[in-house]
């Protein structure tokens, strides 16, 4: 329990770093850290496969892409603006709304109703069997989604090169 709060606190801290740091490279590194800590949380929830996939895909691949984009667009450190923009206000409103929602959930939900996990929960075997039987359609659709991503990226990159 203490471990959970500790990890949760660290996760929140690095998530705040992502949002608040003015240098985008630091933000990206904060994101890596956040994602890694979420993987640790997954391990504590017995979902070790998901944890490893989280590290491989999010921390190891997607944030690399972010870093490339940051370098490619060579985003300079953002200029600190004194007034809070409209987007900032909207974001703050959403944060508050979400906090209220979470609080309501925490109050309403009865933790004593939690069930014992089935044996082998979170194991690779169980997850895979579910994914390739019940989740078959979404699994196949994922491939289409990835195909669209490939084609889209190539088209965008080529347009940039030609112009």
């Amino acid at each position, binding site marked *: 329990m203490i471990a959970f709060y500790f990890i949760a606190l660290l996760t929140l801290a690095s998530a705040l770093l992502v949002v608040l740091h003015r240098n985008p490279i630091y933000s990206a590194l904060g994101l890596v850290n956040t994602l890694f800590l979420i993987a640790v949380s997954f391990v504590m929830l017995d979902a070790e496969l998901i944890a490893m996939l989280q590290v*491989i895909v999010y921390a190891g*691949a997607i944030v690399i892409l972010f870093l490339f984009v940051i370098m*490619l667009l060579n985003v300079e450190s953002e200029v600190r603006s004194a007034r809070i923009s409209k987007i900032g206000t909207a974001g703050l409103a959403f944060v508050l709304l979400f906090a209220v929602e979470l609080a309501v959930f925490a109050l309403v939900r009865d933790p004593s109703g939690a069930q014992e996990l089935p044996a082998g929960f979170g194991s690779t075997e169980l997850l895979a069997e579910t994914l390739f039987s019940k989740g078959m359609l979404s699994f196949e659709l994922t*491939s289409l989604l990835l*195909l669209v991503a*490939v084609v889209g990226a190539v088209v965008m990159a080529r347009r940039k*090169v030609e112009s």
Partner: protein
Amino acid sequence: MNPYIALLISFALCAIVAGIMCGASWLLGPKVENKAKSEIFETGNPPLGSIRGIRFPVKFYLTAILFVVFDIEVVFMYPWAVVFRRLGWMGLGEMAVFVAVLAVGLAYVWRVGALEWD
């Protein structure tokens, strides 16, 4: 015992050792300030200045996004490979469709020359 506690111990130990090794020069080495030394090294020429604002080819970005896509594909294969024997021919069929769709993607990328570097 939970193997992840062992892993955590490993992590801590490695972090300490790596930290000490990275900091060794700072602790042990001399510290002599020198204007020429703090310049970046550009084979003896006066440095051209900061790289913030430098541009590099969009190809690297394309490589990164292709990597993300194919990495996700490979990641789906691991759980499949573990329970593969129990899934049998049905599982093979599912994966064959998945791989075929992405092979089309690879073929497309190859055809339009997005994999060419010159």
